């Protein structure tokens, strides 16, 4: 029979664990809220740049009329031989299936483009570690490829305090590689996050730019209904809204930018502005993806910790029951001993 003292000790230990998972859940909920706000605050700028580019498109010839060549190298479509894949995972674990979902999508992507060369740039430690075990590492400058699929870069601890400038630096190098024709296209795989219950994994092409203002999603992986329900429950328990946040005043104004139907003086030729602005469009897409991924990671961790706390509750309940039974059994045994002892006299 189980020793009551052992069971009591286990209950105490599980209670301690529950304390930790509960705390982590609340911390993740707070971080999620902040991440959602950040993702929201980044929208007006992104919208405005997109709108300006769109309005510039109508004023510039994007294609050379004689040759049919696109005037901006980032618009140039080439046959895809070398692909750069930016893989956005988290730096840390204990986030349920968050990291493994992204990695699964990445493997699918790699299988999908199996006859191409793929360079992987890993954002987040989890993705780096996983890909490092699977594929060789090569510096982007090395003259020979280390393999059809190779790891070319890692960006750890970038997501914790995500700054636009840091993303801009990465994209600057990527754009250079694209213009030098070392890579023919750039994709990013991340966990898209609109709200806690509206998420999916996507592979999105960010270069070349085909149409401004339209996201080019090549692969998607939806969450199961069950997963969404779990996320929803955890969010409710932590006081997080399930709805997409309403459009902010800034966002509404950003949509009307630049003001339509006005005859502007252009200080620079529209083509020149367009040329300088287009790389920023790519940067913004990656930045937005990373912001959403951060929110998704916190949401996943919150959900995982909520489940862990619930499981701890179940374990405590069942252990308490076992402990009570053991205690009752011991009492019964003692009574029987006393009674039979008395009867023997």
């Amino acid at each position, binding site marked *: 029979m189980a020793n009551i003292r052992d069971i009591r000790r286990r209950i105490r230990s599980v209670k301690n664990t529950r304390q930790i998972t509960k705390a982590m859940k609340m911390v993740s909920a707070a971080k999620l809220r902040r991440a959602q706000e950040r993702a929201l*605050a980044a929208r007006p*700028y992104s919208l405005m740049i997109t709108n300006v580019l769109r309005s510039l498109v109508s004023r510039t010839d994007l294609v050379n009329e004689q040759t049919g060549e696109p005037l901006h190298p980032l618009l140039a479509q080439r046959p895809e031989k070398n692909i750069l894949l930016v893989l956005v995972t988290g730096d840390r674990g204990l986030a349920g299936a968050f990291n493994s979902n992204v990695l699964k999508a990445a493997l699918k992507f790699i299988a999908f483009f199996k006859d191409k060369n793929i360079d992987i740039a890993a954002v987040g430690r989890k993705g780096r570690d996983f890909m490092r075990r699977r594929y060789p590492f090569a510096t982007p400058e090395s003259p020979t490829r280390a393999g059809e699929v190779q790891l070319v870069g890692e960006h750890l601890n970038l997501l914790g305090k995500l700054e636009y400038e840091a993303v801009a630096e990465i994209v600057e190098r990527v754009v250079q590689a694209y213009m030098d024709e070392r890579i023919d296209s750039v994709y990013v795989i991340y966990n898209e996050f609109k709200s806690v219950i509206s998420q999916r994994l996507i592979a999105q092409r960010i270069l070349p730019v085909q149409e401004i203002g339209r996201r080019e999603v090549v692969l998607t992986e939806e969450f199961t209904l069950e997963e969404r329900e779990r996320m929803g429950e955890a969010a409710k328990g932590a006081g997080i809204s399930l709805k997409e946040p309403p459009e902010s005043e800034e966002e509404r104004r*950003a949509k009307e930018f630049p003001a339509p139907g006005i005859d502007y003086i252009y200080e620079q030729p529209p083509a020149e502005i367009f040329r300088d602005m287009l790389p*920023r469009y790519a940067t913004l897409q990656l930045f937005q993806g990373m912001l959403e991924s951060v929110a998704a990671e916190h949401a996943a961790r919150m959900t995982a910790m909520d489940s862990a706390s619930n499981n701890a509750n179940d374990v405590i309940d069942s252990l308490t029951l076992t402990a009570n039974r053991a205690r009752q059994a011991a009492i019964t045994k003692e009574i029987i001993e006393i009674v039979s002892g008395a009867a023997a006299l």
Partner: protein
Amino acid sequence: MDDTLQLDIVAPDKLLVREQVDQVQIPGKRGELGILPGHAPLITELTIGEIRYMQGGTLHYLSVAWGFAEVLPNRVIILADTAERAEEIDIKRAQEAKARAEAELKQAGADTHYEALQYALRRAEVRLQVAAHAGHVAPAH
């Protein structure tokens, strides 16, 4: 016509400034632009430099790297890659960046990215220049 301008400065991660101002100076790519209320609609790129705006007799300073501005008679909207208010600039970091760029320029070889270094140097200089104004400005809020 109203005699103030609404100035919005939007950075990638937030709305940095939304104020009614009397006058704005922006570093256009082809030279500085002074904008008063009633300016003709204009679109321009900004280069590294300082944005100054006058509000009720005080001048406020910001540093900006690349940006884009839309000017309307009663409104100026600036989209800036990176913009900082004078009082928010980390002087130590700017000085370090400046020293680093200068050192690298000095020992530059054939494979140096001169443009990138010049750019970094220029940015650090502007940030320091703008930061120097911080003491003269009443806190923005």
